[in-house]
């Protein structure tokens, strides 16, 4: 059963991108374990506001695990100590009375801090803009059932497509690699006949952009998939490598 607990939270505070950051510790009493982790931060922020202090800036929006906006490093793990969830789906029942919880922003060179726990993930958008699409305009497309796609292929594409672009993979990676993110999109589209046509071009363009934006190399440690809130599989990285090598051979 959920109880009320007393906790300490150690939060990274940083006034701006170029400011020096530091940890600040706050004490909270009677936090209900049925509350979500972000509701705990709401409570803390209400307290800070009532003391006329600056509330903690953090990204969040849908609060149901799908928009990919929330992005907290909790006790050393992206999205915290639970599996297959985003930070907004983490609940206080995962913590115990008297615990000190450490909260940091995403750690990655490619995701600079904007303020406190908020980071700039526009690099992911730029990778998508380089090739994460099928080049069709609106209108003039064939009937949706014109091309049959085997169910297992469609399901596999769906699994890859479930990536929410939160950045936990790059944040978890000791090299700061974005390979899981890139490979999920490359896989989804390469698996489907609609996207197959541009597969080689897409893989090259997205990888080139990823390298340009300062993401590190993949050394197959698997931390990305272990921390991915949507369980995007490492098999996607293997597929990306295959697509990429094939594309390079063709050149």
């Amino acid at each position, binding site marked *: 059963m959920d109880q009320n607990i007393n906790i300490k939270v150690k939060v990274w505070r940083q006034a701006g991108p170029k400011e020096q950051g530091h940890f600040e510790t706050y004490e909270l009493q009677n936090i209900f374990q049925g509350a979500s982790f972000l509701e705990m931060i709401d409570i803390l922020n209400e307290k800070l506001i009532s003391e006329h202090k600056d509330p903690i800036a953090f990204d969040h929006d849908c609060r149901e695990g799908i928009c990919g906006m929330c992005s907290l490093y909790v006790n050393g793990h992206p999205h915290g100590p639970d599996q297959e969830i985003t930070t907004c789906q983490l609940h206080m029942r995962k913590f115990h009375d008297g615990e000190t919880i450490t909260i940091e922003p995403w750690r990655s060179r490619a995701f600079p801090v904007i303020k406190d726990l908020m980071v700039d993930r526009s690099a992911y958008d730029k990778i998508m803009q380089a090739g994460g699409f*099928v080049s069709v305009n609106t209108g003039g497309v064939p009937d949706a059932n014109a091309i049959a796609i085997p169910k297992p292929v469609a399901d596999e594409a*769906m699994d890859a497509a479930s990536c929410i672009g939160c950045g936990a993979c790059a944040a978890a990676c000791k090299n700061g690699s974005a390979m899981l993110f890139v490979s999920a999109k490359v896989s*989804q589209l390469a698996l489907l006949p*609609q996207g197959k046509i541009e597969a080689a071009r897409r893989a090259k363009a997205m990888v080139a952009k990823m390298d340009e934006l300062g993401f590190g190399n993949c050394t197959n440690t698997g931390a990305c998939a272990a921390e991915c809130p949507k369980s995007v599989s490492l098999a996607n990285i293997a597929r990306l490598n295959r697509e990429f090598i094939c594309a390079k051979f063709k050149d």
Partner: protein
Amino acid sequence: MALQPQNGIITPEMAKIPQGPLEKKWTNYKDHQKLVNPANKRKLDIIVVGTGLAGASAAASLAEMGFNVLNFCIQDSPRRAHSIAAQGGINAAKNYQNDGDSIYRLYYDTIKGGDYRAREANVYRLAEVSNSIIDQCVAQGVPFAREYGGLLDNRSFGGAQVSRTFYAKGQTGQQLLLGAYSALSRQIGKGKVKMYTRYEMLDLVMIKDENGEDRARGIIARNLVTGRIERFFAHAVVIGTGGYGNTFFLSTNAMASNGSAAMQMYRHGAFFANPCYAQIHPTCIPKHGDFQSKLTLMSESLRNDGRIWVPKKLEDAKKLQAGTLKGRDIPEEDRDYYLERRYPAFGNLVPRDVASRAAKERCDKGFGVNNTGLAVFLDFSDAIKRLGKDVVAQKYGNLFQMYEKIVDENPYENPMMIFPAIHYTMGGIWVDYELQTSVKGLFCIGEANFSDHGANRLGASALMQGLADGYFVLPYTIQNYLADQISVPRMSTDLPEFAAAEKAVQDKIQKLMSIQGKRSVDSIHKELGLIMWDFVGMGRTAEGLKTAIKKIDEIKKEFWSNVFIPGKADSLNNELEKALRLADFIEIGRLMAVDALHREESCGGHFREEYQTPDGEALRQDDKFSYVGCWKYTGEDKEPELIKEPLDYEFTERKTRNYKA
């Protein structure tokens, strides 16, 4: 001059409904509308605010056609707009299941589902373009669910007797939005769309043309990272900023979803239509505490296999409320499957408004099943027996996982507990057939406008409308406006109109920052939400609505005299963002109550307790209220003026909605 309402009535000419039979109207329109040639498209700029299904699909499509698009969103990426959270699916009249579906049937279900309070011509067009949406999404690589034969799968949703809903697991909104986002990303990469993330629109800029008529020519927006107020020009402005459900504080909307762009349009003369039509979704996870920040939806698709019930005996309900009894321990004969009992023909798949009211009715009578008495069961034990746990897990696994993470209870073993919550707003900014508001050059798309859903929206129709507007309607109709604008040069944002608009925004922000009172923004917002839920929620009365208006006026005073916003205006400041949104939510809440008070009938999501049949069903008053209730702004703290667009049903016979037989 643009057409104006005559004696408070919007004529079909002003609404620009094309002539001809229902099924020919859209074709006739397209055959005769004005177009802009490719060379001229390059000279025209369009602002699109919002990157949800409507905004992203419109921005991408307009850019593909050759227009220059400036696209704005408040999140850090256009991929995060709240359309992403739609779970269940998208409707289309493909009739792939050979179960008797057709464009007419989708039209009819939608107009009936909306309780005959939508425009016939718009709804027919929506059904007509629905099939193209599915084709488009598949071409983009949206991984819809498929059958073993490789063709697309469908499922059923509320308010329909056919299976016409296309889906991608429980993440259909996500996949459709990512499809639109990928098309948008392609155009950003090509330089045809200039994307502004973490920007919030704070006002519309109007400039008079050579005839002295106001036209929308740009926006004022705040860079949410730097706090800088910036000016943007365009030949036309398109708003796709979603609904205003967060007026209630607790809703299924995202935290930043807001109605401020709608209020900015309203204050510049765009009519606000049917603000009282808000949808209360029947299957949400019940509220668990005062600190709660939002409510989580459980997809309507669960009602395909889940059965909704409460105990037959009050003493069982009391034990459930005290926590001494579990739902699974109540024997079959002591369960009241009240939807199947009351509505045999549609059963658990009645439309949302009907299902929500039925849940409230049972809970009001004391049959609620959790500690607050405000919950009913959604039970999968029959489905698990019939199909096996694996099949159920395959269909709904991610939803079950979501439920278990929040409630800490396994829904495979004990029935889910659910309760209605605010989810969607059918009301919104009035638009004509071209999706143009009553302000020239200002267009409104998706949930932000009022069209298509009448007084109640059917499940899986929001995605359909958002993408219909953005891919297949606006890109045509906006040309009919822009064809006359090809000789209008790009204007400088140094013009006095831009300066004045920016100054007004700066003054408002300064006023808010200088209050330095004692209350946080959220504390006031929660108070507003409670008033809305208690008096402007599922059951409304004249007396309750009058109380609501009085209380909202008090909240407005409290807000403008006692709110506290920390930090500075010229830097990142979440509390300031929230305060600016709350200022508008207070106005919207009042407008909802005023509209609900004037509409002396029950229809769709609007239920006035004074107007119901003896067995508790909604009672429409077609002779008095068969119109779109449009509210015109008349000034700060002045009562708005009511303008009516009559809904003359020319092609469809209006009946009492019946889901019983």
